[in-house]
């Protein structure tokens, strides 16, 4: 080849043949105490990642206090019958391990990772936290103060304020309607309540243990049996809350933050859970609308108009009810313009079929990103836990991509017509009313609140 001759093409090379996507084999077991155990190998690094989930979270404890499951899980790591806090933290470091504990609306969890050579000591520590947490008085009070400060700080976080208001609007008195406890509620937490939540939620019959990493599954299962086998405890009674009513008619709520230099928009509506037959369709529709960088929403209000840095839409699959939301932090002058585009892109999907090429792009994106999880232990763990926690079919991972690729433009239009109705979107804007009130009022009947949630005239 002559020196300097250029053979680089002017058009993007075609994709090569796709390599097979193979999910690692999962080993499943159920101990006699009811604990579900799922293991998979991944030898990328000499470590393993794990989660011990309990199928109960803040929603299940709401009648005692909001956020109680989160508070309980937080204090769990601060002491056991055998080890004080300092000992726990140094023992974790000694075996090269990380550990966190927390809870959301539907689950409580202890998450951990460490060197495979110390698997048994790490599992033993997790076991001790799950069964013998002592809730030391001093630690509880310290964590209470931390939580109080966190709850206070939330009131100046625009993203939090928007989310809090939207969840209130969508879910009302349902447990999902309150995203965080108030300062008064945190101040009123009782140690006995944490202990009773712990006894009720942290039981083997209510639990799933997932382990992914550099180990032999048969040997790891033996260790897990040795460590967790003698644990006993029934699962709590399932609490059923009244079905939340989906709000009809588009309304706007403005959370007033004087002097805010930017406005946080959050708009949403009821949707579906992961078990719903339309889940994959809605996921693809969402991705094409605003769930990917190369999506209608992002290309419009960020790349074309420069209104915002990170607009995104999401489908949130809480266990009992799902919801859809679209979020954008925008320049104050373009609140109305941004809302117009957000709603326009929804309406467009309801009436104009998505071109085949654009649909194929979106399908390839979702399909490709789905298999990224294969490449890391954390990614694998995340995929397996989604399947386990939502009780999805055993071949969910293996069949997801073909389900995505089987969808048509007609499917997307039907899905948009069913779930994305601009006339029924609930809109929240968090910002300075002096700058945005007039703009917000253009989109529906307006209610105004301060950052504490008190209605303003």
């Amino acid at each position, binding site marked *: 080849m002559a020196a300097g001759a250029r053979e680089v093409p*002017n058009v993007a090379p075609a994709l090569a043949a*796709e390599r*097979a996507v193979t999910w690692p084999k999962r080993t499943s077991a159920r101990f006699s105490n009811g604990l579900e155990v799922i293991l998979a190998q991944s030898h990328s*690094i000499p470590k393993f990642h794990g989660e011990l989930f309990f199928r109960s979270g803040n929603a299940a404890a709401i009648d005692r206090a909001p956020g109680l499951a989160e508070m309980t899980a937080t204090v769990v790591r601060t002491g056991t019958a055998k080890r004080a806090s300092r000992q726990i933290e140094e023992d974790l470091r000694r075996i090269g391990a990380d550990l966190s504990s927390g809870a959301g609306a539907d689950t409580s969890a202890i998450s951990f990772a460490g*060197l495979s050579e110390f698997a048994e000591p790490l599992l033993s520590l997790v076991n001790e936290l799950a069964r013998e947490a002592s809730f030391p008085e001093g630690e509880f009070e310290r964590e209470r103060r931390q939580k109080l400060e966190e709850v206070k700080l939330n009131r100046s976080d625009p993203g939090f304020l928007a989310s809090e208001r939207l969840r209130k609007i969508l879910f009302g008195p349902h447990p999902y309607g309150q995203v965080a406890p108030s300062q008064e509620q945190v101040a009123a937490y009782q140690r006995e309540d944490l202990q009773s939540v712990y006894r009720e939620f942290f039981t083997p019959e209510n639990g799933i243990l997932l382990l992914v990493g550099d180990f032999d599954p048969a040997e790891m299962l033996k260790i897990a049996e040795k460590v967790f086998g003698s644990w006993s405890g029934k699962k709590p009674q399932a609490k059923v809350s009244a079905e939340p009513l989906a709000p009809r008619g588009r309304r706007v709520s403005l959370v007033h933050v004087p002097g805010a230099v930017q406005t946080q928009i959050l708009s949403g509506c009821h949707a579906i859970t992961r078990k719903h037959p339309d889940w994959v369709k809605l996921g693809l529709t969402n991705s094409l609308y605003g769930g990917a*960088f190369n999506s209608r929403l992002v290309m419009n209000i960020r790349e074309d108009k420069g209104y915002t840095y990170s607009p995104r839409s999401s489908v949130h699959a809480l266990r009992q009810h799902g919801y859809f939301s679209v979020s954008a932090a925008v320049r104050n002058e373009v609140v109305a313009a941004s809302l117009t585009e957000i709603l326009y892109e929804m309406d467009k999907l309801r009436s104009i079929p998505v071109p085949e090429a654009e649909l194929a792009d979106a399908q390839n994106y979702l399909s490709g990103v789905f*298999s990224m999880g*294969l*490449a890391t232990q954390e990614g694998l763990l995340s995929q397996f836990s989604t399947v386990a926690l939502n009780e999805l079919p055993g071949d969910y991972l293996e069949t997801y991509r073909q389900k995505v690729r089987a969808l048509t433009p007609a499917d997307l239009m039907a899905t948009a017509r069913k779930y994305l109705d601009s006339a029924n979107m609930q809109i929240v804007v968090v910002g300075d009313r002096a700058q945005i009130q007039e703009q917000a009022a253009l989109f529906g009947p307006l209610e105004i609140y301060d950052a504490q949630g008190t209605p303003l005239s």
Partner: protein
Amino acid sequence: MKRLQIGVASTTLSNGLHVVVAPDETAPVVTVGVYYKIGFRLEPQGRSGFAHLFEHMMFQGSANAPKMQHIKLINSSGGMLNGSTSYDVTNYYEAVPSNALERVLWLEADRMRALKVDDENLKNQRDVVKEEVRVNVMNQPYGGFPWLDMPPVAFRNWANAHNFYGDFADLDAADLRDVQTFFKTYYIPNNAVLLMLGDVKPEEGLALAKKYFADISPGPPPPFADPTEPEQHQERRGHVEEKFGTLPAMAIGYLMPKRRTPDWYAMALLDQALQGSRAGRIHRELVLEKQIAVEAGGGIDDLFGYNGPTQLTTRILHKPEYSSDATLAAFDEVIRDVREHGISADELEQLKVKWRSDYYATLEGGRGGYMPKYGLMHLLACFTLFDNETQLVNTILDGFLAVTREQVHAAAKKYLVNEKRAIVFRTPVRTNAKEAA
């Protein structure tokens, strides 16, 4: 102890481009990155924020991939992408199914070869960057603390001390000519490294690199900002306002030694003793034992990726019932103890086990589940660009595991001194009306 050996093949093309391939056929995924050896330090005065704005421009169009095409092609190939700018490097990376490797290389070569952007693109991304600064800094409690507040207090050389997110006036002043000049000067193959990690064979990777990048002309060695700081003889202090939060805050930063000196290894472990995890002394004393602080922690800013003055920093949010003097005194007590006594043998043992574990975790991930091998990519890139020793990835761990108690103690005495530190106090303008007097 299980030994981890990363297979790495590397070469340098005739135009100066370093190429590194780290094969791993476990998953049908490949992570590709291009690192350019430039960062915030070399932004001229009047153009603060330029390197980051320029990074945005790199996604706005190249000769054969006009605006939006780059992102569209990566996403529609099944992948995700991003970029980042820091003090000494700017990187562009994507993780894609491995059948898209050739396409990704074509895209990266296209934008290394010729950026094609216009005034409209520039105006658009300037607007986007301003909203980025607003959402991450200006409209957030403790936004930009301490990473934007500390440099002007800690450093005297503008290269190290300025606002690298950019004053809005400077962002407004940046024009297309600046963009093109910056591109021609710094975005040349001999100032860069191309990395491929995952489902790619070394021969294949190197052959594709040649195919797509070999024709790109090198440029004259670019001028770099001199990051030399005048020697510091006295503690430095600064004060800024916190507009939203009610907890007073402070950040303390100590100057770090140069990368890969013996002191550097010791400081890395000392940093972990002080603030790695909840067992770290600072968190233990200030949050758990004395309960003065609600948050206390930090670290060394990009241990492997810095190539100029940097700090070991601690960020503290403390209860308002404690004065900042009392909080600083509690922090100083932790420092005094480690300067006087060093760390225990048992402590060092624990730290080394954790260090090894964290190193492995870095190799596999480092940017969540969607950007596999980001950490490995970062190490390989920095070892190539700054040390000219790509294979360090397999030997550097030994350096940390060989650190002795005496070395950690000596490092504490040498570096954790008031004369070599800077402190920023961030004071709330609000008091919480609900708080009892």
